[in-house]
């Protein structure tokens, strides 16, 4: 489903990684680990179609895709380390704006339910600037729960989440993988994914890294 061939990333003259190839099938979660600065976020942005690889190619459903490919944009839910929340808008409005943008037919009730699932029901109607870091991440989780995209790309999904939040993430990931979805996540901690679906990738072991 998602496949890379001899993928390489450079920053300036430094090679972050090269010759990276993997194939991820439906229902599998690729968890990328490695020290800071080894190119985890760079890899995720390439797979999301935000930036072009220095070398190699990325294939989605058997076809080679370039950055901002239309097919990839239909399939990817990208949850980067930036929250993409507008402080001026409420949690509800933020979520409603995103579901509309992404064509995820979700009505007001579905959005309210998604916010209730991440324990934000009572904070849904106040501006997002009044929310804590963890609550902001929870809006991201609510967004994933409304998403019917097949490929979830998550950059450090555990950051700022409390144990309840991690539990919500676990449920979401399990349901997504069971439904044949794919997950690519960068994480320093162990991601709550069933081991049968887990495909670990340690970028430090990929050749080309200039780090120790």
């Amino acid at each position, binding site marked *: 489903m998602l496949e890379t061939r001899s993928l390489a990333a450079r920053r300036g003259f430094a090679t972050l990684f090269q010759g990276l190839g993997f194939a991820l099938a439906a229902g599998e979660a690729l968890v990328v680990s490695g020290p800071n600065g080894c190119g985890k976020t760079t890899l995720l942005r390439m797979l999301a179609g935000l930036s072009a690889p220095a070398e190699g190619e990325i294939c989605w459903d058997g076809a*080679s895709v370039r950055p*901002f490919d239309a097919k990839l944009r239909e399939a990817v839910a*990208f949850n980067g380390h930036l929250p993409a929340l507008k402080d001026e808008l409420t949690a509800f409005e933020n979520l409603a704006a995103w579901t509309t943008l992404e064509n995820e037919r979700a009505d007001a009730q579905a959005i309210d339910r998604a916010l209730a699932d991440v324990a934000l029901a009572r904070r849904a109607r106040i501006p997002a600037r009044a929310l804590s870091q963890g609550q902001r991440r929870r809006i991201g989780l609510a967004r994933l729960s409304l998403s019917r995209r097949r490929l979830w790309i998550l950059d450090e999904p555990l950051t700022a989440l409390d144990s309840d939040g991690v539990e919500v993430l676990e449920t979401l990931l399990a349901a997504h993988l069971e439904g044949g979805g794919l997950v690519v996540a960068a994480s320093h901690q162990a991601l709550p994914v069933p081991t049968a679906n887990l495909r670990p990738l340690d970028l430090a072991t990929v050749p080309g890294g200039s780090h120790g």
Partner: protein
Amino acid sequence: MSPTAVPQPDAASVSAAFAWALGRDLRIALRSKAELGVQLMFYVIVVSLFPLASSPSREVLATLGPGVLWTAALLASLLSLPRLFAADFGDGTLEQIALSPRPLPALVSGKMAAHWLTTGLPVAVLAPLLGEQYAMDGTELWILAAALLLGTPILSLLGAIGATLTLGARGGGSLLALLVLPLYAPVLIFGAGAVDAVRSGLSAGPQLSLLAAGLLLALVGTPFAVAAAVRIALD
């Protein structure tokens, strides 16, 4: 690498994307009214400083008027440009917009339209009032407003190209001024020229037609240029 089957966005999805971006940006702008007020106050103050600094004779003021009102409109537009994309770039919204299945040129068009409605349009409405300070008569004020109505959208459109190209650049604000102000020059020349023409007893038709032509050209071209610049900025 199949070149086929790239779905072309249809009219409905284009207008939906445009409406989405326009509505969202307008809503955010209305919630941060102070920022809008600052820009308008800036325009009012700059325009009002010139009569204080120069001779109060009607002739001098009447000569200065159109140029001052237009230059101040350029500066007010420039002042608001960083806000157009920088906030969305900083909080990750721009990534999500660029990754959405909706057509990006339509989305950025909605943002540019919201920018004009919140900065260009108020300037065009205010200008005839401020023109009174420059001893401009009724016809001149009407022509001034008409020229600004045609010209300020061009400022928002051209400015958006500069704003996206300078995303993420250090000292983006001053770089933006260097990049955008020369592009604004033709708009300034024809805009201020329209009022001068009326004062000399000529028709403002040619200047207004040129502004309208420039606007059409910018409307067609800039959404694609800005969309391309957004993708480059995110890479």
